[in-house]
């Protein structure tokens, strides 16, 4: 019997078809060839990108936009939002609009032309996470922005561009994104009733039952969510309650790098280098406003959502928000626990 499962945070129902369960090999693979010729993200080609905003450099003196860096952040070559200007909120008849003001940056994760985060070593991923935090904290100072979404598109099916060089992106938006808002509201509603964080409860239940637990290491857990929208969807959450990703400090950053790398390697091994997206869900910028975000420090819990893109999302999902997931999360967790990420 297939099951309908309700996401406890957003209230989204998901169909889990337990009988037609798809195994990793049932999905067709989609490996993309590396781009030939010159890559703007490679060391030595710094002149091919807009001027850098931030770098983690090698020791010694270095001029901006030259060699000698480990992680480099530049404005997107094709920004979807513009950094200059005012919001200019206005109406047009019954419709509402505002200017597309925001920041769109690219975090180049390595000077070498490598394609995936799974192939980077722990200390390099550590630097990437540190760069995320530094950029969020810098953008926080701009009062026009309410939210920074850090995300990664890997593979053409996941919406990645023709540049195969390993990179993530961030977009700072002048309004809170709808899905984030729903998650925040869902978490607050739960807190209002139970005076506990829903994510902390979820972590506890997942550790107790073990069914959907992929890893539990150094203060982080990786789980396949009960109402996973996608086959092999994995979330990484800090065990200690914290609403804001940008508050994590040194040993935690190292631990997160280790868990993220292990999960990405497990997914690569289990599913044959699948296309995927990941996003970091964290608390919005808490601009003081009476009665707003009153309990967010207690009720929200930042996390990373990793979504392998193994099935094509069809009209039904788009039109309803109802997802059909052919792999039970319990099976996905078992495969991922068993697969050896170092093989």
């Amino acid at each position: 019997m297939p099951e309908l499962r309700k996401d406890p945070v957003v209230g989204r129902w998901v169909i889990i078809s337990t009988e037609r369960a798809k195994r990793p090999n049932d999905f067709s693979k989609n490996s993309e060839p590396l781009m030939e010729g010159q890559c703007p993200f490679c060391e030595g080609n710094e002149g091919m990108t807009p001027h850098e905003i931030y770098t983690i450099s090698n020791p010694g003196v270095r001029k901006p936009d030259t060699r000698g860096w480990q992680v480099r952040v530049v404005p997107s070559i094709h920004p979807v939002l513009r950094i200059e200007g005012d919001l200019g909120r206005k109406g047009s008849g019954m419709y509402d609009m505002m200017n597309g003001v925001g920041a769109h940056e690219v975090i180049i994760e390595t000077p070498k032309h490598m394609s995936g985060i799974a192939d980077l070593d722990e200390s390099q991923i550590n630097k990437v996470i540190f760069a995320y935090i530094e950029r969020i904290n810098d953008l926080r100072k701009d009062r026009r922005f309410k939210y920074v979404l850090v995300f990664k598109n890997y593979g053409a099916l996941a919406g990645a561009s023709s540049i195969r060089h390993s990179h993530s992106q961030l977009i700072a938006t002048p309004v809170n994104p709808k899905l984030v808002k729903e998650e925040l509201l869902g978490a607050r509603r739960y807190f209002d009733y139970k005076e506990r964080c829903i994510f902390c409860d979820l972590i506890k239940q997942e550790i107790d039952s073990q069914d959907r637990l992929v890893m539990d290491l150094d203060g982080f857990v990786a789980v396949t969510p009960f109402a996973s929208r996608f086959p092999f969807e994995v979330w990484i959450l800090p065990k200690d309650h914290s609403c804001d990703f940008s508050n994590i400090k040194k040993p935690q950053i190292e631990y997160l790098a280790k868990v993220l790398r292990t999960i990405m390697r497990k997914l690569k091994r289990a599913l044959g280098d699948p296309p995927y997206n990941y996003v970091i869900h964290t608390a919005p910028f808490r601009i003081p406003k009476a009665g707003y975000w009153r309990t967010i420090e207690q009720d929200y819990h930042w996390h990373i959502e990793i979504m392998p893109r193994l099935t094509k999302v069809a009209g039904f999902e788009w039109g309803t928000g109802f997802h059909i997931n052919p792999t039970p999360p319990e099976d996905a967790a078992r495969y991922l626990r068993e697969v050896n990420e170092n093989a």
Partner: protein
Amino acid sequence: MPELRKDTINGRWVIIAVEEGRHPADFDVEPHVSKGGGDKCPFCYGNEDKTPTEIYAHRVGGTKPNTPGWSTRVVPNKFPALRIEGELNRMGVGLYDVMNGIGAHEVIIETPDHEKSLADLSDSDVEKVIWAYRDRSIDLRGDKRFKYILIFRNYGESAGASLEHPHSQLIALPAVPIIVNEELKGSENYFEYRERCVFCDMISQELQETERLVTENRGFVSFTPFASRFPFETWIIPKEHCADFSHINKDQVIDLARILREVLLRIKNTLRDTSYNFIIHTSPVEERERDDYHWHIEIMPILFHVAGFEWGSGFYINPTTPEDAARCLREAKI
């Protein structure tokens, strides 16, 4: 300067890249190469025994069910996402909620002709498809376990179609889908404040401004929505207020068949036969007739893969302004 536009109904913001707007030729479209019908296709004539037993059909007089002689045929999906038998059994598991996957999942085979698409059928054949949508909706509305009847069509591999023979699908659900619920709530809020239907207001603004208008006829209007999520997203909506698709009358079936075929043909010719999804958004299964909701069809051409930003934020990035899209669709040769 790109623009942020707010969807009036559900509050969703969309980024519209107004300056470097992408035009039809800027998108890669995967070509449709027919693998051919005949023996291998369960929806072709002579293969009626390869589908589950038919539920509904338009047939020439004297032909028996599950034999050739039909022009539209509805059968249960062989690989249903939901099962028709059983009870919902809602329950909790710790902090989680679960129910059984009860529902109906049917396939509407639109024509015996393997090589045609909905845009290529005659108006009267499209009318038969719409009657099938309507008749199946009315029948399933009688089942008290179902809260919502969703009719949709996946065309092309990128849109998730697994069989190429022209068909639509219907799923009856035991819960109102979240996106529909948001639309219902959004239109309720609008009505509370203004005492007018948000969709009726939208129709009158679109007919007046005409820059997003694709086409219109006696009973229906087609336009590209102000805050389109996808490039060339196109809606078709009845001019007369009505919340429930299954209340469609005979004249409206005729008008809808014409406009649906025309719009699909415009999309096909503008976007080189691109893959697309369309869905009918209608009111839930209920007794009351809503003043604040208005059924409509949303057509979403698939021109690129949605990326992490959209999935993580519910914020869509649309690289083609709806005004440009509407102009291209109006100018398409049909």
